[in-house]
């Protein structure tokens, strides 16, 4: 007995269809796998956050008093590795992408449901290896594994950490593969490429990077392990290798990887901005293609991480120019979001606050990227806190803001419950303020010359004020991140049941129930409208009005 509008608990959906641990661990439902990923990445987010807390506490005072130098090196290394490879890269694609890509294009599931489950198991295996590595001593090279320190000098657990990242890399490749095939093959009738939500375009571009970039970093890390154990002479100059070759190969993946983190966030922001200003995204085609442009151009700029490492000055010049070029498609997006707001009827619900936060923070992160792309300025600020602030503005300010915005926007769909809106707006504000307080002082510190990766700055006690501000900000930021976790969990039990389309949003996922049934749609949808048809949605429907004659 299907009761489309019956009480929430009675409708069969992906959550209540089956119970028990086995029904989760062996599921091939993309929505359940998304939730498995959600729990696992949240776990790693808190581990990474714990390391960050210790780093900030050490820097509260100029002297190196809380931890020893070796420990500090391990702290920032494990912080970086966990946050990059076990939180940010899987975050949006594996959670929200997994949940929404099939729903937004009107499919029953991803193209390869079992490969999807396999990708989660690979992630877990890699994660357990990483945990084991951390508990038995950890690594101290920085998340970048730079040679020859990593291959010839350090006696920490390089091989184990490398293998953990290698395995997790394959989980990322499988997710990308699944998305590409799904987006090509499983679109509902009428869902043409030009009707795809921008979230899908962003995930398509992200998948290209995952597919083409990740194998390179995987092989590179294997080469590091091989050189360490077999003394091959690929990167070690003493054996005839070239350490800069490592940096080339590493950044060939790792610069595009920053776009794996930011592109899905941009997709989310496009959805939110359109919905909460009730307008079609301005310049849809440009925003869609700028995602692809970012994926392609993102592969052409990697050596801007090597400017002071001793590469050819001519190559540096070319990479500097190309780095400026990659900012263009990002700017296209930012301008088009702003233009979308123009004359929109804007609502300031929590998802929209996060989207605004994203735009502001991403802009500051991106523009300081241009500072760093300038050869002269980079010499001054490379390896200082300026770089740390730059990439945190993008990866934490940008990517995590987008992730939280998306979690709020789709939480009613995912859980079938409404979160408390007032608390959510407060949390968005706390995150925004805490973020600036944490990272803005770091721009100043870096510009004044405080190097990154130092645990003791007692020769420069005048840096303490800015460092204290930053640590204080980190505490506020921590509260801002804890709040959503608490009220999301709370809402699962006490939240009001969510209607199918609480935001009155366009998009196929909202035409399904909240939470959706296992195969997403009771009848296969046929798409006859353009994406973001908010004008149509909000127009009064004369044919539906009661006939009064």
């Amino acid at each position, binding site marked *: 007995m299907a009761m489309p509008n019956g009480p929430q608990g009675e409708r069969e959906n992906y959550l209540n269809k089956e119970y028990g641990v086995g029904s989760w661990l062996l599921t091939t439902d993309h929505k359940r796998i998304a939730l498995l990923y959600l729990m696992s990445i949240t776990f790693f987010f808190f581990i990474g956050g714990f390391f960050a807390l210790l780093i900030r506490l050490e820097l509260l005072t100029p002297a190196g008093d809380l931890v020893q130098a070796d420990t500090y090196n391990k702290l920032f290394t494990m912080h970086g590795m966990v946050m990059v490879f076990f939180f940010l890269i899987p975050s949006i694609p594996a959670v929200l992408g997994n949940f929404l890509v099939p729903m937004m294009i009107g499919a029953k599931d991803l193209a390869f449901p079992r490969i999807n489950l396999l990708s989660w198991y690979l992630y877990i295996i890699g994660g357990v290896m990483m945990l084991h590595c951390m508990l038995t001593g950890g690594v101290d090279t920085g998340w970048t594994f730079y040679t020859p320190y990593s291959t010839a000098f350090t006696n920490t657990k390089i091989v184990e950490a490398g293998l953990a990242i290698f395995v997790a890399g394959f989980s990322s490749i499988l997710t990308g593969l699944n998305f590409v095939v799904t987006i090509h093959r499983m679109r509902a009738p009428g869902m043409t490429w030009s009707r795809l939500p921008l979230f899908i375009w962003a995930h398509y571009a992200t998948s290209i990077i995952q597919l083409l970039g990740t194998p*390179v970093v995987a092989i590179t890390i294997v080469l590091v392990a091989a050189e360490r154990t077999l003394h091959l002479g690929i990167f070690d100059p003493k054996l005839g290798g070239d350490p800069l070759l490592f940096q080339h190969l590493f950044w060939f993946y790792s610069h595009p990887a920053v776009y794996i983190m930011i592109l899905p966030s941009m997709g989310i922001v496009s959805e939110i901005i359109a919905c909460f200003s009730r307008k079609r995204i301005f310049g849809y085609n440009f925003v869609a293609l700028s995602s692809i442009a970012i994926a392609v151009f993102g*592969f052409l700029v990697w050596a801007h991480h090597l400017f002071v490492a001793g590469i050819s*000055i001519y*190559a540096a010049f070319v990479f500097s120019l190309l780095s400026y070029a990659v900012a263009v498609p990002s700017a296209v997006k930012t301008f088009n979001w702003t233009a979308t707001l123009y004359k929109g009827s804007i609502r300031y619900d929590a998802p929209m606050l996060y989207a605004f936060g994203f735009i502001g923070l991403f802009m500051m992160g991106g523009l300081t990227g241009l500072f760093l792309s300038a050869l002269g300025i980079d010499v001054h600020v490379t390896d200082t806190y300026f770089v740390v602030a730059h990439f945190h503005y993008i990866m934490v300010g940008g990517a995590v803001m987008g992730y939280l915005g998306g979690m709020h926007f789709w939480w009613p769909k995912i859980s079938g419950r409404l979160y408390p809106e007032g608390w959510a707006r407060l949390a968005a504000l706390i995150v925004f303020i805490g973020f600036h307080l944490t990272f803005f002082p770091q721009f100043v510190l870096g510009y004044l010359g405080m190097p990154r990766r130092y645990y003791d700055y007692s020769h420069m006690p005048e840096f303490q004020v800015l460092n204290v501000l930053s640590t204080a900000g980190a505490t506020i930021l921590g509260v801002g991140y804890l709040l959503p976790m608490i009220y999301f969990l709370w809402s699962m039990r006490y939240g009001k049941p969510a209607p199918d389309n609480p935001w009155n949003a366009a998009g196929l996922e909202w035409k399904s129930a909240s939470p959706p049934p296992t195969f997403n749609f009771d009848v296969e949808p046929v798409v006859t409208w353009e994406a973001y048809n908010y004008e149509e949605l909000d127009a009064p429907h004369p044919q539906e009005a009661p006939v009064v004659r």
Partner: protein
Amino acid sequence: MSEHGTSIGFYVMIFLILLVLTGVTVSAAFINLGPLNPILALGIATTKALLVVLFFMHVKGASEKLVKLVVLSAVFFLLILLGLTLSDYATRLWS
């Protein structure tokens, strides 16, 4: 249907060719050809990779345009990796 890729014998043959080429690589390592060393080694490796891609991965005979597009873009990105990296090595001031 006239695909030759369907019989097991065909795959075994490709596999044997791959083994022979591996043997050639190993034995060539014992002969010093000077500057030809890397060229020979990379030549053999490329041949092997081609065999795997064309036959084991069924790219030869694939009717899908999408498959060709995927292969071409992978090669394209490989060329970016090699080309831009070499732009550094070719113009670096070695002293």
